[in-house]
């Protein structure tokens, strides 16, 4: 009976101090919303980075990149020569290499559907990245054709004009039609579509990896780029424990073939899982140190607002505490009242903060194509933190006030 009355009275009291209650709610709302947003999005980004890295890299991989070149964006001016023969030599001389695929890249090329009209005008067109690869690409990159088939070794050795197109390109050029066996123009060269690439999605750089087409490496080199170098290659190593050693072997072979004397730096770049783990570690440090730190700061700022308000609330209400004590409130009744007031204000703000933070996180996640990111951990952390701030800020001073002799509390101003 008595407790029920006290609980109701606490809520009535919150209503009476509307402005201050609202400000307390806002204080906890801001912090919790920021925390939920940052931790959720951070977790989503981390998952995305890790899955993409695993997709591209895998545990048993060594990447070879031509000096000054970038695997995904193609050769740069002055790039050192890395050739198909270099890689063939590596595969021959390093027995730990189980399989390999080399790449050459044309970062953007106009792609058109070859129309029925003889002029070749009027068909739907797109711009996409063109990647030249060998028939071993599906195995080495773990990405094959989902419709039709990937081209074979014969297509590579004969520089055949066949192409496997990404889903985005397929949609832009063919809509819902089946593109297999259709003709497309990559630049001025016509190709026959033999397959559609497995969906990949967006990679860590925000690049749509379905917006690309894959042609035989030799075709890309001779017919599209007119080069005799490659941009890079990916080697699969027999045992994941040996990638470092294999990396050293590969470097030795390449330096020898490029005639680099000792002391001269490599004119290529090797990436093994040691480097990748270091990169992932950097990403994780940002996500799990700096972002939560930022969120923690906002939570603290919100908490400080609530705390200041609760403190001023209690000190402005010492005489109220005196009155309540005079008419028979026990010290623990006062404590209960302030506990309920501060906890319910903090929790109201926290719940709203979680809702808004989660909504913003989902929105951000959708834009970044992260999938669903809401983190239960963030939600719980936010609720608990705001509750702790509310309690510490409200209940401790109330407790002190409740312990005063009522005569002293009554004598207080306010």
């Amino acid at each position, binding site marked *: 009976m008595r407790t029920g009355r006290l609980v109701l009275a606490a809520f009535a009291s919150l209503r009476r101090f509307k402005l201050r209650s609202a400000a307390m709610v806002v204080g906890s709302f801001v912090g919790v919303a920021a925390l939920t947003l940052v931790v959720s999005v951070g977790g989503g980004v981390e998952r995305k980075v890790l899955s993409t890295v695993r997709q591209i890299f895998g545990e048993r991989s060594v990447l070879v990149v031509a000096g000054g070149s970038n695997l995904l964006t193609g050769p740069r001016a002055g790039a050192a020569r890395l050739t198909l023969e270099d890689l063939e030599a590596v595969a021959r001389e390093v027995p730990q290499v189980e399989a390999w695929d080399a790449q050459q890249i044309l970062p953007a090329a106009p792609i058109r559907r070859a129309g029925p009209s003889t002029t070749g005008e009027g068909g739907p067109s797109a711009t996409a990245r063109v990647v030249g690869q060998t028939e071993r690409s599906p195995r080495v990159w773990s990405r094959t054709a989902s419709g039709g088939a990937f081209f074979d070794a014969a297509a590579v050795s004969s520089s055949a004009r066949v192409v496997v197109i990404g889903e985005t390109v397929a949609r832009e050029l063919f809509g819902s039609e089946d593109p297999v066996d259709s003709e497309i123009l990559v630049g001025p060269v016509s190709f026959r579509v033999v397959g559609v690439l497995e969906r990949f999605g967006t990679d860590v750089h925000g690049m749509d990896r379905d917006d690309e087409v894959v042609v035989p490496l030799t075709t890309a080199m001779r017919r599209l780029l007119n080069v005799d170098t490659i941009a890079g290659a990916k080697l699969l190593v027999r045992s994941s424990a040996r990638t470092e050693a294999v990396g050293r072997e590969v470097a030795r072979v390449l330096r020898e073939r490029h005639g680099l004397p000792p002391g001269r730096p490599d004119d290529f770049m090797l990436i093994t899982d040691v480097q990748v783990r270091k990169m992932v570690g950097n990403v994780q440090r940002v996500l799990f140190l700096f972002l939560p730190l930022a969120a923690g700061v906002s939570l603290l700022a919100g908490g400080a607002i609530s705390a200041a308000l609760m403190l001023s609330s209690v000190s402005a209400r010492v005489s109220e505490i005196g009155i*309540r004590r005079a008419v028979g409130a026990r010290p623990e*009744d006062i404590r209960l009242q302030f506990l309920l007031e501060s906890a319910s204000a903090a929790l109201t703000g926290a719940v709203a903060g979680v809702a808004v933070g989660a909504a913003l996180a989902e929105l951000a996640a959708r834009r970044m194509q992260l999938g669903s990111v809401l983190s239960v951990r963030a939600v719980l952390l936010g609720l608990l933190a705001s509750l702790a701030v509310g309690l510490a800020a409200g209940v401790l001073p109330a407790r002190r006030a409740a312990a005063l002799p009522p005569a002293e509390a009554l004598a207080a101003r306010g």
Partner: protein
Amino acid sequence: MIELRDLRKTYTPKGSATVRALDGVSLRIERGELLAIVGASGSGKSTLLNVLGLLDLPTSGGVLYDGRDVTGLSPREQARLRNEKIGFVFQAFHLLPRSTARENVELPLLYSERRSIDSLAERALEIVGLADRAGHRPSELSGGQQQRVAIARALVNEPDLVLADEPTGNLDSRTAGEILELFAKLNAAGRTIVVVTHDAGVAKACGRTVRIEDGRIASDGRA
């Protein structure tokens, strides 16, 4: 009913000499008395009333309710005693400014062990003649009306003892007279009432007057 035994209360404010607010007060108050405590400002009247009502503890000495010393009770037991046995009226009214008259009067009931508190506040407001102002906030009431709300609050839990510290100190003489009449009526209905006052008229209306000087009882006379 109540016995005060050799009460002493000293204050030692920071950086000043010790003040003996109560310096050996012994007093018996019988059930049904209407007692006035008078004396110069600073003589210790409020201190005495606070100690009597367990709003403050004496430095030494005893406060006996029905023969039992209550100064050693836990804060929890003292709170219950204040709630059930004592009603307070203060010079500054001490109403909660954001609560209505009814909510203010209900305050002691909130902390009581009663099962139902229905209509008790209305009844108390009726006794003080403010049944029609139950929904008003203190700022919407005159000083006299606010003090009557405070008296209704003191009465609502039907205490044996009402302690009033200069209840008419903030009121004009006509309103003060009304409050005094109210006390007389309550006393006639059997309540024990102790009033601290500066007002000679108030003291004269009481059956017994205790004069305090420098924390001691200087005189104790019945009319």
